[in-house]
Each structure stands twice: as C-alpha cells, then as structure tokens.
C-alpha cells in the first residue's frame, strides 16, 4: 500500500507537482464546475458539483494509494495558486499507462500543461520501466491534440470512451528520451 502522503514532489521552471491535500477541494471544485474544463475530463462531459468533486478528489488520491502513482496536484511556484492536475493515470480497464493533464480554465494558454506534462513524463519513464505511454484525448479537444503533438506523441488509434470518440496518442521511451 502506497501512502499518498509520500507522493514525490517535482519542480519545473514555474510549477510544482505535488501530492493532494484536503484543502485542494475548493480550487478543484472551481476547476471542475467549469463546463469547458469538464467537457473533456469527466466521463459524462458534465461539470461536477462540490460533493461529487470531493469524491473525484478521493479517487485521485485513492489512485495513488492503490497503484503507487497518479495525477499530481499542480501549483504555481510563485504564490502557490492551484493550476490543475497532471501525471499518471491507469484505472481498471484503461487503454494503457496514461500521461494525463487537465488545467483550470484560468491557467490555459500559459504553456503550463506542456511544462508539467514534460516533467511528469520524465518521472514516469524514469520510475516505472515502461516502454511506452499513451494519452487519451477527446476527438474534439484541439488544445490537447496540439499538446500531445508538441510532446512528440502520435495517434495510434481512435477508440470510444463514455460513448465519445477519443484518440489514443502514444510515445515510446526512446522517442521521449530523444526529444
């Protein structure tokens, strides 16, 4: 059993990736109540109310407890504002070992997702002996498609999740390291 309090802490130029705390709920609830954010992150494409966001937070933390890895809470180094969640994701029946990302709307367009995903991807490849990782991206999510491309990923196939078409982007260890 992994204790989520032992979640590693990663630093980038502008961001800190860290373990979840109970007091992340307020900022996570704001993020998940935004229809444009929820559209590509929740299984039914709908925003989450606050009690359901707590269950989502418990799922994020519980994923670390059960798997020993998960999505990090991401905050700005300067000031500590909550930015979103980025990291590893592989619940039961998932398409593969995923590098995932999702940011609060107020932090879109700053290059934060790329910065955090690079750090998380480095950590994933260094820590788990994987030969490849994938990212599941909604077929209409152009921002995330652009990000996956910038990370050097390529579309492997299209699949259906929650009844919606999603692209499976992937990258091999050697390609990631060669960037």
């Amino acid at each position, binding site marked *: 059993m992994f204790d989520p309090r032992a979640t590693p802490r990663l630093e980038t130029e502008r961001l800190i990736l860290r373990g979840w705390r109970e007091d992340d709920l307020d900022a996570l609830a704001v993020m998940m109540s935004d229809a444009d954010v929820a559209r590509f992150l929740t299984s039914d494409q709908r925003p989450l109310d606050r009690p359901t966001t707590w269950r989502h937070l418990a799922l994020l933390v519980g994923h670390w407890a*059960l798997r020993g890895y998960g999505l990090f809470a991401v905050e700005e180094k300067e000031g500590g504002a909550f930015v979103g969640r980025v990291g590893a994701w592989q619940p039961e029946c998932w398409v593969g070992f995923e590098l995932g990302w999702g940011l609060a709307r107020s932090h879109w367009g700053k290059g934060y997702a790329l910065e955090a995903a690079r750090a998380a991807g480095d950590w994933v490849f260094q820590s788990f002996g994987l030969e490849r990782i994938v990212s599941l991206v909604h077929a209409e999510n152009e921002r995330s498609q652009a990000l996956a491309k910038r990370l050097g990923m390529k579309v492997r196939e299209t699949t259906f999740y929650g009844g919606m078409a999603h692209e499976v982007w992937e990258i091999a260890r050697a390609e990631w390291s060669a960037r």
Partner: protein
Amino acid sequence: MIGPTLTTARLILRPPLHEDFDGFAEMSAEAETMRFIGGLQARDAAWRTMATLAGSWALLGYGMYSVLKRDTGEWIGRLGPWRPGGKEGGWPGDEVGWGLKRSAMGQGYALEGAAAAIDWSFDHLGWERVIHCIDKENAPSIALALRLGSLREIEDLALAPPFQDHKVDIYGQSKAQWKARAR
C-alpha cells in the same frame, strides 16, 4: 499504511488494498447486494469506487475498511466510518455503513465487523453520535441497525450528490448509548 488494522473473533478489518479488487468487483456485480448501496457497477466503475474508499482514508484519516475472514483471508465486503466530504460535505452525519458479498451474508459477520468499526470510530474520531443511512426496503440492514442498538431518527432524507435522488432513513445512537450497550 493509511489506517489501522482491527481484529475481531473471525474478521480482519483494514483499509482497502489493490489485492482486494477481484472480490470487490465480484460484489459490485451482485444485483441483490448492490441494490441499496449505489447500484450495480462494472469493473471499471467498481475500481473507481474502491479507489474513492482508499482516498477517504488518505484525505480524512478514516474510511471504509476491507473485511477479510481470519481463517481463509478471503475478502468478504467493506464496512466502516464514512462521511464523504468530511464535516462540510453535506452527508447527514458520522456514518458507519456496511455491505458484504452475498456468500458472506447471514453469518453475523456484518454485526461483528460493524461493532468493531463503531468502537474504533468512537475511540479515535471524536464522534458523539453514529448514524446509518438505510433504504426503507433494506430489511436486513434495518435489522442490523436495530441489533446494534440504533433507532430510526429521520425518514425519507435525500442524500448529498451524486445520490440526491436516493432517499434513506437515518438510524443512529449516541456515544453514551453505544458505550452502555450490553456486549
């Protein structure tokens, strides 16, 4: 470890581990078992539920325990303290809830495990009362609540989202009542 291990005459109670998942998924696919505790769940949804239970331990310091038989190590269900969102989560109170696999029902395991979980909750979580949220038609759970010494306090209460369409009756008792209970 993210929580304690409790031992009763026949059971071990400890926070969920990944190795519990096959049993957890099996129970989640039993229509009669799941009828009053959130409904049937396929493996992907069941995993998310089990992770949410583990996450409660990490966030709040308590949550549902996995229940295992001491003699065989078999996972037979989950029960224990449950208050999603903590004090401000909109849950009707400090609950000890339970749910066992069908093959483990009718042998006094839920009573044995729930009593240990209530003892632990009063001794470690500072609770003054314990409640159980039970569907009106869930006769076995109502019988267990009464057997534990809890009484019906509220009828037809809507739970917090995502279960706002599910009405339950609230059974409960005070810490003093629990401590005075004949063993």
